[in-house]
């Protein structure tokens, strides 16, 4: 496990999916929340220094230096969140105390606005709200406290906060703000369910002993999370002002989180994750577009890590992914379905290994204590693990258009234009050009992806396929070439030589 000082006892008592894939993957976390949580860890201070009455925080916008001390601290910034989302959110969750506080913060902002020229502070306060709201990431008909913005500034990346109806309705309207702002669930991990932490740990693993890579990635991520830095400063002003206004002690609001552990089976992919991120982030592409590509790319990287780890844990041969980009070839579709099925089987097999610790699991979690260590309990554990592992692959795979169809049987893996864009920008440096064969090799090396070419031969021999599917693979290649061409990444230098190129220039950092 990584880090080395992981808690063995905690590991053994964890549920099957955590034992197999680290802490943790969870069915309800959305694609953007993986990204936001990852960037939250990166942006947050990682060290708390108490000096008499003064408390200082350090380590923002960098990776942990010591992988055995993986805590990070986040200010939930409830005041700011309320200012941005409260008005436009659904009715549920608009508790009286929050309505009261919302009116207060709005009033406070109105009073803080000094206009040189025409206009009313109230109108301008609404303009500020719209300016923030235009960058919303996850609204999903959620209550205001569960919504989030795109990671365009470190001050605008929120940790999880969940308002408990019972508790919040009981709060008196004149309750002290130190209490009203803290009376949320910050560590329930329902949305920020630790998938981003898991990914963060894989990056940390990939950066071990690679100082230059670490520095390069830190610089690029810094640039990414300052896409609209000035709005972050405004956010920070609003929150700070609110804290002063209400006498809120920031120190009391700060939440401590600790990243847990991941399996070492992620190691092979971990370095690739880092290098791919550096490539993607160094393209001279609008940061908002990069955020989108990064979100879906992260998922693809996590899926691949999972599959490789599953095979290591279950003692299965290194997996390949046969992708169907053939636009209708039946044999390719069947093989891709089989490939996806094998992915699922490997994940299940890896989950089952943890049953050896069944007694520890039962005693470790309150919700399992009612069960006897029998078949019913095993079944329950397997079902839970399945939901939070391969269930995640299926649901989020469909969201990023890696798994098709959205509904119905014959699920298989494919590539969309956005995923192809991610792969080109991640596998090739800005302006880099490689032959199509080299690109196939990279896809195979990094993701075990088989589309055609030499790799189809490797696939056939691995799967002991007697039948000759050469024509089918050629159709798959043809579809892939068309996809690359349509997306603007393919150039034919002659009829014998096609090159794949990353058309973006490098950014100047």
């Amino acid at each position, binding site marked *: 496990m990584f880090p080395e000082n992981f808690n063995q006892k905690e590991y053994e008592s964890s549920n099957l999916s955590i034992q197999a894939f680290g802490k943790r993957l969870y069915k309800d976390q959305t694609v953007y929340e993986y990204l936001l949580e990852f960037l939250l860890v990166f942006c947050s201070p990682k060290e708390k220094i108490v000096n008499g009455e003064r408390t200082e925080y350090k380590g923002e916008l960098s990776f942990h230096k010591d992988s055995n001390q993986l805590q990070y601290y986040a200010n939930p910034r409830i005041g700011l969140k309320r200012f941005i989302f409260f008005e436009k959110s659904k009715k549920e969750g608009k508790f009286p105390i929050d309505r009261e506080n919302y009116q207060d913060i709005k009033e406070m902002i109105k009073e803080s606005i000094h206009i040189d020229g025409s206009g009313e502070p109230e109108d301008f306060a609404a*303009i500020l709200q719209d300016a923030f709201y235009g960058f919303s990431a996850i609204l999903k008909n959620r209550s205001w406290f569960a919504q989030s913005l795109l990671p365009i500034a470190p001050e605008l990346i929120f940790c999880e906060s969940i308002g408990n109806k019972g508790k919040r309705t009981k709060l008196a309207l004149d309750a002290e703000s130190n209490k009203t702002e803290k009376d949320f669930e910050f560590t329930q991990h329902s949305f920020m369910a630790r998938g981003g932490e898991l990914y963060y740990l894989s990056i940390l693993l990939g950066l071990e002993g690679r100082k230059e890579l670490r520095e390069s990635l830190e610089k690029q991520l810094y640039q990414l999370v300052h896409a609209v830095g*000035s709005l972050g400063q*405004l956010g920070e002003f609003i929150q700070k002002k609110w804290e002063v206004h209400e006498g809120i002690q920031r120190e009391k609001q700060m939440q401590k989180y600790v990243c847990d552990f991941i399996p070492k089976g992620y190691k092979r992919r971990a370095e690739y994750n880092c290098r791919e991120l550096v490539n993607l982030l160094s393209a001279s592409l*609008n940061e908002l*577009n990069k955020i989108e590509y990064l979100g879906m790319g992260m998922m693809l990287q996590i899926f691949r890590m999972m599959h490789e780890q599953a095979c290591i844990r279950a003692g299965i041969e290194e997996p390949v992914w046969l992708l169907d980009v053939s636009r209708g070839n039946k044999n390719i579709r069947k093989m891709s379905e089989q490939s996806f099925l094998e992915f699922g089987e490997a994940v299940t097999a890896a989950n089952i290994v943890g049953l050896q610790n069944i007694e520890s699991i039962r005693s470790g979690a309150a919700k399992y204590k009612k069960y006897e260590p029998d078949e019913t309990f095993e079944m329950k554990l397997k079902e839970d693990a399945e939901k939070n592992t391969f269930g995640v692959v299926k649901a989020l795979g469909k969201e990023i258009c890696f798994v098709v169809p959205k509904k119905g049987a014959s699920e298989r893996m494919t590539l969309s234009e956005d995923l192809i*864009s991610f792969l080109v920008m991640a596998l090739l440096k800005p302006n880099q050009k490689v032959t199509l064969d080299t690109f196939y090799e990279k896809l195979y090396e990094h993701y075990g992806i088989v589309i055609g070419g030499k790799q189809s031969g490797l696939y056939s021999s691995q799967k002991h396929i007697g039948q000759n599917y050469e024509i089918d693979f050629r159709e798959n290649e043809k579809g892939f070439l068309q996809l690359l061409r349509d997306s603007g990444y393919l150039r034919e*230098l*002659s009829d014998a030589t096609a090159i794949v190129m990353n058309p973006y220039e490098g950014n100047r950092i």
Partner: protein
Amino acid sequence: MKNGFVSYLNTMHNASGSNEHAIAENNINDKDNFSGEILFERNITEKIIEKLCEGLGKIVILTGHAGDGKTSILQEIVRRCTGKEMDARKLQDDFIYRNNRHIHYVKDMSEHEKEEQIQIFREAIQAVKREESVILISNTGPLFHALQELGMEEERIIELLDTTRLKENQENFREYGPVPIVVVNLALFDNSDIIGKFLEKTLQEKLWSDCQNCEKREYCPICFNQENMRENKKQIMDFCEWYYRWNFEHGERFTVRQILAHLSYAITGNLNCKNIAKLLGRRNQKRILYNTFSNLFFGFHYEKELSLRDVDALQIKPIALIQKQKLDTRKIPAEYALFVQNNLHIFRPKMEELLEACQTGKTGMLEEKKEYFRVMKRAYFMYHQKGEQENIDIQKAVFSEMFSDYMQLQNSERIRKDIIMNIKRITFQGLHVLFMGTPPDEDDKIYLTARRRGRMMQNVQISQGVIYKDSLDICIEEKENMTNGKKEKIIQLFYNNVYMELKLPVLEYFKELESGLIQNKIDPRLSQGVENIKAKLYQARRKSREDLTIVYSNGTKFQKTEVTIDENGIWVQN
């Protein structure tokens, strides 16, 4: 009477099977009398000869698509340097030319075994060491293999292959040290220069002299075609060149072989003297009209009294594309004159008479009528005699508004200020829509807003810098076009010491944005070029992270607000 030249032209396209010239290098063999008659020289040949003779010895690699004319160019080089035809049986040979330069040539590397290919390269390097030059003809596959075997990195080989500059590179080979190499990759060149040359040669009267004495002359669509083409030669050449040039600028490039197949099909319609001999003893005007060059160029021919799509002609790649593009369905300004006023004087008498004789077609079914109008339109593209202004209208209507400006810029001796101003205006307006989601208001400035993909309009936006219209410039860089010898004009946007190339598709996209034809989903091939321009503008004008400028629309106009934050509050300056 049989004209052998018609049969020869039919062997150049693949609209029917077994057309040997269209599928192999045979068109340069001395099999018949006509290959010599239609030989034309290519500008690039002289450039290659210069490279072979200048300085010390070097290797010139001539590569490209099958059908790009590599072998023809080598043949031309040999002919020019030695005054003799290349011996088709020899795979390699040598001769001495200018500056007493010893020049070796290898006809086709791919005809040699893999090991031999590497040996050929080694021998070429040794020849260069003796201050001799070598020209190697090779497909890129064997070339890649040989260069990799000699220790060259893949990315370096791609770099060599992916340029049109004919630049001499000193390549370091493991055992041999630096060797000067020039790569000419014909696959990257626009071949539209051959259209005029080929048609000039093809329309020589002597090649059609047999037709003069043919008893079927009056009924023969091919005979009519060559005469009519000779009368309208310039307009035909112009339209064909526009078509090929416009496609080239949009990434659709055709090989020499494909272009020649298209043109020769458009002359004969895959008819031959034998078919024509069977025609009844009366002149069928529709057969002639529907088989004219203009109709055939679009892949339509005469069939059962109608102008119908020739399915066999779809094997010719440019025809398959032109049918997909449906350029002949675009509305042109001359439609009123053509279809309502029935003004046929805009054609030369021969064509006017033919069109008049075919007027009965207009009384048919709706579809038939529509197709007849298209026949007239195609004829109009290629045979009208209304002059240059009309051609500008055709370019605008059939291809794009910007294509017309683009071509005028390419063809004019001096840089026309009105065109530059127009490009600047359209670029400014396009960028305004891209960054702010709306056309410009009366303020000539663009706020560089942080915008999300696929969202065209946001009422309140954050600006990360401002660009004033006056600070944008359009510059023209002249670059020699190796294939037609003309000065190519590269259009560039200049801002804050940064140059950004504005290719035709990007200009067309800006024009669409300016016209309000906003596309939610931009062609990804285009978006990359646009993204690179946006990124450069951002970098050239990005503000510090402390400055906050909010831009919001008050319905009619964008309002800019500078926001400063300090411990006392939010200071807003409208």
